[in-house]
């Protein structure tokens, strides 16, 4: 789960990382009041969960409260990469002498978190990683030992930070690590971390991604989720414990297991079709879950055919069949369906669906080819 800039910064600040004075609002008139409070010069920042906000015009400097109101009104009316701007952060403007980068993420291959710093801050760090990787200094953090003082110092030295700032840099690095660990983050990033004209370090921007698997122990973070920016179907799916991602194609799929769901999408493509979604109903799904999944698939108007591929293990095929019938009882649809049931209680499942007028298939390839043919016939 991604956090907004203002959420990330507030969280960082809770762990002792200095941030500029700032206020969040949805009203341009409020932006004016905040600017007055902060002495006039402020930065108006669109709070949307996309990168490159500055380039897209979503971050602007206002010199007066009046200009703050005008820019706030303009930014609140914008869309950035398809997402409407509903909230803005009004931050006190600061005088910057240098921008650096500091971030932590998980290095899968090393099986430990990695902290990265760069003197080339303020720009897209992935671009720096591509074009001049030597400008990024990395240290791996032992998950049992945590970040050590010498490691933070290594980073400070590596990015040629003035000696007088080592202490405060080291504190920020430690605090960022503590915040990362305490909140089960998979990314915590300060870009830029600036040196102000008063020779202080300040986190001007903040970004944090939290491990979805750990949200059970962070109810406070879970409440920060911005449902506005998420796909309706993906939100609905999460409510039922389904893993769903909408795609552009015309064949809806319902599968048990993530790997098999991906393989099913792939074979649809290989057979000349395009999947409309990724959907994993998980292990041991009951009929209620299956019915919810089918309603979500059918809510997508692009769907011309639905393919069920269920390999029963923990999941029982008869439960899936009952769920399909339950959903069809309350969603009237003419979308044709292809069903493949294998494994636990497959025979019972097939019997339940015998009167439902669905095409059946023995193999995965046959199922995909049938679904593609039916979808093409339906659109012709």
């Amino acid at each position, binding site marked *: 789960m991604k956090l907004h800039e203002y959420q990330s910064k507030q969280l960082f600040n809770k762990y002792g990382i200095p941030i500029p004075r700032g206020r969040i609002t949805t009203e341009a008139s409020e932006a004016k009041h905040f600017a007055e409070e902060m002495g006039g010069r402020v930065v108006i920042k669109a709070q949307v969960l996309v990168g490159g906000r500055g380039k897209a015009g979503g971050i602007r400097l206002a010199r007066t409260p009046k200009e703050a109101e005008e820019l706030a009104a303009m930014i609140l009316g914008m869309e950035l990469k398809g997402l409407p701007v509903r909230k803005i952060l009004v931050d006190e403007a600061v005088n910057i002498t240098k921008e650096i980068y500091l971030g932590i993420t*998980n290095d*899968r*291959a090393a*099986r*430990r*978190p990695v902290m990265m710093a760069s003197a080339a801050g303020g720009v897209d760090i*992935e671009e720096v*990683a591509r074009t001049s990787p030597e400008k990024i200094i990395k240290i791996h953090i*032992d*998950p*049992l030992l945590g970040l050590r003082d010498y490691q933070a110092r290594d980073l400070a030295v590596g990015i040629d930070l003035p000696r007088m700032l080592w202490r405060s840099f080291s504190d920020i690095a430690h605090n960022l690590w503590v915040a990362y*660990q305490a909140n*089960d983050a*998979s990314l915590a990033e300060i870009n830029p971390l600036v040196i102000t004209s008063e020779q202080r370090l300040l986190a001007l921007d903040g970004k944090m991604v939290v*491990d*979805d*698997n*750990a949200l*059970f*122990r962070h109810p406070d973070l879970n409440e920060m989720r911005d449902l506005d920016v998420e796909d309706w179907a993906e939100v609905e799916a999460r409510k039922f414990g389904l*893993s769903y*991602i909408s*795609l552009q194609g015309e064949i809806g799929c319902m*599968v*048990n*297991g*993530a*790997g*098999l*769901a*991906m*393989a099913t*999408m*792939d*074979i*649809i*493509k*290989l057979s000349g079709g*395009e*999947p409309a979604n*990724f959907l*994993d109903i998980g*292990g*041991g799904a009951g009929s209620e879950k299956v019915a919810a999944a089918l309603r979500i698939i059918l809510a997508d108007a692009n769907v011309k055919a639905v393919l069920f591929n269920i*390999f*029963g*293990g*923990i999941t029982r095929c008869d439960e899936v069949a009952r769920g399909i019938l339950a959903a069809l009882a309350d969603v009237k649809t003419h979308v044709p369906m292809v069903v493949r049931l*294998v*494994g*636990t209680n497959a025979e019972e499942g097939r019997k339940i669906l015998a009167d439902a007028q669905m095409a059946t298939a023995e*193999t*995965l*390839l046959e199922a995909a080819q049938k679904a593609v043919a039916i979808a093409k016939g339906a659109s012709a």
Partner: protein
Amino acid sequence: MSILVNKNTRLIVQGVTGNEGLFHTTQMVLYGTNVVAGVTPGKGGEWVLDGKIPIFDTVRAARDTTGANASVIFVPARSAPDAILEAADAGIELVVCITEGVPVLDMMRVRAYLDTRGVRLIGPNCPGLLTPGECKVGIIPNNISIPGNIGIVSRSGTLTYEVLYALKNSGKGASTCVGIGGDPVNGTNFIDVLELFEADPHTDQVVMIGEIGGTDEERAADFITRKMTKPVVGFIAGQSAPPGKRMGHAGAIIEGGAGTAKDKIRALEAAGVRVARHPEEIPQLLAS
């Protein structure tokens, strides 16, 4: 013959009284697995499966009493890291964690600790292991595979069943099937298992099932080039997956342009691996 599990495996089930734990313990016993004990804190002294399997409060007590050498974990995600560590500290040699949804920072700590203890962990978020005709540890359905000489290693669950089933339908059997799990940090990776299959005299060929995300398949390809003499057939799920989206498994996400199916297939093919276009094509690509 086989790797990791066989008829000498003496298994403990952690979380034996839970819904899934009990169901799959029954299935494992039906399959012929030697389940010697269950562990549920607070239920020590009771029995499951009509008095066939004793329950202990701790893994240590279960191991001391029964001489178990392997453990399978069915406890919820919030308790799974602890369950793994408990098994490791009790001296269990092989720990298999079926549980899905363990936070990745927990797994990093667990893995760092296990590395200092020499314990083998399979999973988490995996279907477990199967040596057909001898032993099943985990949740792979009982009737979808026959004994044979093909070693199988996979990051997926049901996709693995699909492959076992396709092999069985074409008369091919498995030496051992190892589901290593779909999480970004796990206990055992492709290379560990490939190494075991290469050394196993009764495995002649290997099937490797990967998916998008991370670089484990690429590193496995490098290992295959340098160390494997046995033929390998591969499959990579997620060729049609969009970048930046987590496709169900925590580990299945294309990040910053890395971890795509295309890169993995290219790396495997360069290592001489025959890569199937879909799971049902795998049997045809294996030598008969």
